[in-house]
Structure formats: structure tokens, C-alpha cells
């Protein structure tokens, strides 16, 4: 399946894009998405373990399965306030 991934902050700048499309198997997980993203964007590799993912506006860990047409985002640790 095709997954649109919104990128934010330094992840967006390093990938030089605010949204990327990646191909994942059906029932692909966040962990697979993490691997695919850092394979494609070498610049993201130094922060690979600290990248956070959200699916449907909720934080999702590597085991989480990405639903078809789910809203998916990837970003570094937050620093609002």
C-alpha cells in the first residue's frame, strides 16, 4: 500500500519535504516505515532511533500496524511551550 507521511521540524528539513509517499506491505508497521524512510533519506539516519511516529493523531510505536488511508506523521522529539 502507498502511505503518505507528513514530516515536521528537523525531519522535514533533512528530507527536504513536508510530505513523502512510501510503499509498504499491507499491515505494514511503524517499524517498517521507520526503516524505509531512513533507507531512502540518508540525512535522517543519525536521528533514526529518536524519530517519533503518529497514526491517526496518536503516538504509535514500532509494533503498531498502519491502517490503509491512515494519517501518518514522523517527527523528532517535541519542544513546544
Amino acid at each position: 500500500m502507498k502511505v503518505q507521511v507528513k514530516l515536521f521540524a528537523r525531519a522535514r528539513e533533512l528530507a527536504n519535504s513536508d510530505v513523502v509517499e512510501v510503499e509498504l506491505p499491507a499491515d505494514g508497521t511503524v517499524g517498517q516505515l521507520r526503516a524505509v524512510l531512513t533507507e531512502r533519506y540518508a540525512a535522517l539516519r543519525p536521528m533514526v532511533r529518536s524519530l517519533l511516529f503518529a497514526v491517526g493523531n496518536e503516538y504509535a510505536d514500532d509494533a503498531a500496524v498502519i491502517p490503509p488511508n491512515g494519517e501518518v506523521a514522523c517527527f523528532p522529539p517535541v519542544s513546544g511551550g
Partner: protein
Amino acid sequence: MIQLTRDEIDYVAMTEAVRTPQAGAVVLFLGTVREMTAGRRTVALDYEGYPEMAESKMRELAEEARRRWPVEKLAIAHRLGRLELGDVSVAIAVSCPHRHQAFDAGRFLIDTLKETVPIWKKENWADGTTEWVHPGT
């Protein structure tokens, strides 16, 4: 009252909105852009957010505060975009019957907002360099 805005935060309207005769205490917290951070001089901050999720997380924070304290009313606002020194980046107003409840709820709200709400700041240092603030990276 949950708000993400690129305009100046109207903390007075927020404070007035949480005042009520059911509450004896109002606590307002303002986060403001500080010039010096660990000895380095900032000239501006750029705040970026993931708006849908940020608003969702701010609503969850409000619900959690209402579960934990007898909150009468509360308001949370976060600003996005370019902020100059002294500008208000975040405002939290909360009213409760008694003061310690309002202090505890206000502190919980800002502490948890900083940990969970998807907003990021980029430092614009006085030496011309920029740097995303991503704790732990």
C-alpha cells in the same frame, strides 16, 4: 477553549474567560521567549506545529486535568510562526475552587504540553545560526 494561532495570544481574554464565582483561584501561565539559553543569545524562535494532532493532544490534556482536579474552566493557547524576544509562545489559564488545585493543574498542563503536544521550536541564535530544539537527540 483550545487554540493554535499564528497571531498574538490574547491572554487577557483567556483569563477573563476562566473567571467565575464558582472559583476562588485563577492561575495563568505564560511562556515567553527568553533571550539567553545556556549562555547563548537568541534573537527569535520559529514555532512549527502539526495542527490537527496538536489540537487533539491539547484537548486530551484538558480532559486529563479535569479528571484530576476540580477545574471550573480552562483555556490553552499556543502560538506558531516567528516569535520575537519576550513574545508569549504559550498561555494556560485555569480556575479551581482552591488555589493549590489551580497551581497543580496549571503546572500539570504546561509540563505535559511540553512533553506530548507536537510543536517544535527552532532557535535563531544571535550568531546567525539556527538550530531545532529536539530534546534527547
